[in-house]
């Protein structure tokens, strides 16, 4: 019998299974996230009052960098072993398969980072009011990073040294996410209303969810030609 005939869960399952077998797919971005955040008190000051001020921004910046770091492999590994061509040549719609890969990427990087963030918030003396917007904001924001990043990763998939280029291409598009995400935490800490800001982040997420997979699918067809 055929255990699965659903292409989307098929690709999602496959990517997660590969990640679990290799382990590093989950661990490396997470370790990077923790290590770069450790740099902050060393470079700025160990004083809790100073750290508390910059904690929301620093956590968001390091989360952005950690997802960016893991972005390069999202399609590149599949191109190297030939399975990307099979995905593109599937009669199923390419955007839905791309979406499955993006979801897998988020589960591998965005979700662990989101779950780790409260711990780092504690280490950077983030006041108690900041944790709920930090976690919800990061959950949605890292999903935006994966969705937008997939377009850049698709365009640079066949390039030998695409890693730095990918960051340059994608980072300007990350600005709105960073602005909304970091200020929602800051506003919560200052005792201001933060839900409208999270709502804007949610609106941006909806927009990228509706457009991103189509753009990434188009980019993939172009990018494989090198």
């Amino acid at each position, binding site marked *: 019998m055929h255990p699965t005939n659903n292409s989307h869960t098929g690709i999602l399952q496959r990517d997660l299974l590969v990640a679990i077998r290799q382990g590093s797919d989950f661990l490396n971005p997470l370790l990077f996230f923790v290590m770069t955040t450790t740099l902050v008190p060393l470079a700025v000051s160990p004083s809790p009052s100073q750290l508390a001020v910059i904690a929301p921004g620093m956590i968001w910046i390091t989360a952005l960098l950690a997802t960016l770091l893991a972005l390069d492999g999202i399609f590149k590994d599949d191109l190297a072993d030939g399975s990307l061509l099979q995905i593109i040549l599937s009669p199923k719609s390419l955007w839905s398969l791309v979406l499955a890969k993006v979801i897998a990427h988020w589960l591998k990087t965005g979700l662990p980072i989101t779950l780790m963030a409260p711990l780092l918030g504690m280490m950077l003396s983030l006041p108690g009011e900041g944790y709920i917007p930090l976690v919800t904001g990061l959950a949605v924001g890292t999903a935006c990073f994966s969705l937008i990043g997939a*377009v850049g990763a698709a365009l*640079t998939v066949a*390039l030998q040294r695409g890693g730095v*280029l990918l960051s*340059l291409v994608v*980072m*300007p598009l990350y600005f709105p996410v960073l602005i909304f995400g970091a200020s929602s935490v800051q506003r919560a800490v200052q005792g201001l209303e933060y839900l409208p800001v999270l709502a804007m982040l949610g609106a941006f997420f909806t927009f990228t969810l509706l457009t991103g997979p189509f753009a990434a699918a*188009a*980019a993939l067809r172009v990018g494989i030609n090198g």
Partner: protein
Amino acid sequence: MWQSILKFIQKWFHRFGSPRWFYQTTGKWLPYLAVISVGLLVLGSIWGLGFAPQDARQGNSYRIIFIHVPISVLAMIGYYVMAAAGAVALIWKIKIANMVMVSAAPLGAALTFLALLTGSIWGKPTWGTYWVWDARITSMLILFFLYLGVIALNQAFTSRDTAYKACAILSLVGTVNIPIIYKSVDWWYTLHQPATIKLTGASSIHPDMLKPLIVMILGFYCFYALVLMLNTRTEILAREWRSSWVRGLSQ
């Protein structure tokens, strides 16, 4: 009826889409465009720098707007020119549109850089500092990054055809995101607006200042068109060097 109009447009597009036709036609326009843009720029500069009245608050230092404002406007429009050319190239597969797109990228980046430079030179006497994280300056900086991304992507590919398509997709994605980026930066700025810096707000501009400014804006538009054509012609020669008509040019 509609179909015949569409057919006509398509036919015209394809004629215009031939690099050779573009090269020869723009060759005829270049001298006129050069004379017009130099004329307007010289006229506007003399008028703006020499004859327009002083600003009540900023004295003579405001006169940099005669360069700064047209450049900033074109830096923004340049991105849309690039993206529109990219869209035309993707949809109708017109060669020349690709060439216009990749020629518009460095031009736009240069204009954005100049806008930032003139802005910061203007900032010193006005705000007492070269750099302020003001909403407009920050947006301009992000625009500069967006241009650099397209340029870097264009250079990364060995295949020109792939580079064209990749840049077209990236500039379209950028275009869709620009309004969102601008709005979010605006919002971010109002959130953190420092009280110490007073911006010289949108005070109504005197008509005697406006007239030379309009002349300068028109002059810069012509200048932009001129440089874009020159850039595109260079790209055509670099790309079509194998064809017989390009070889014929050097004989």
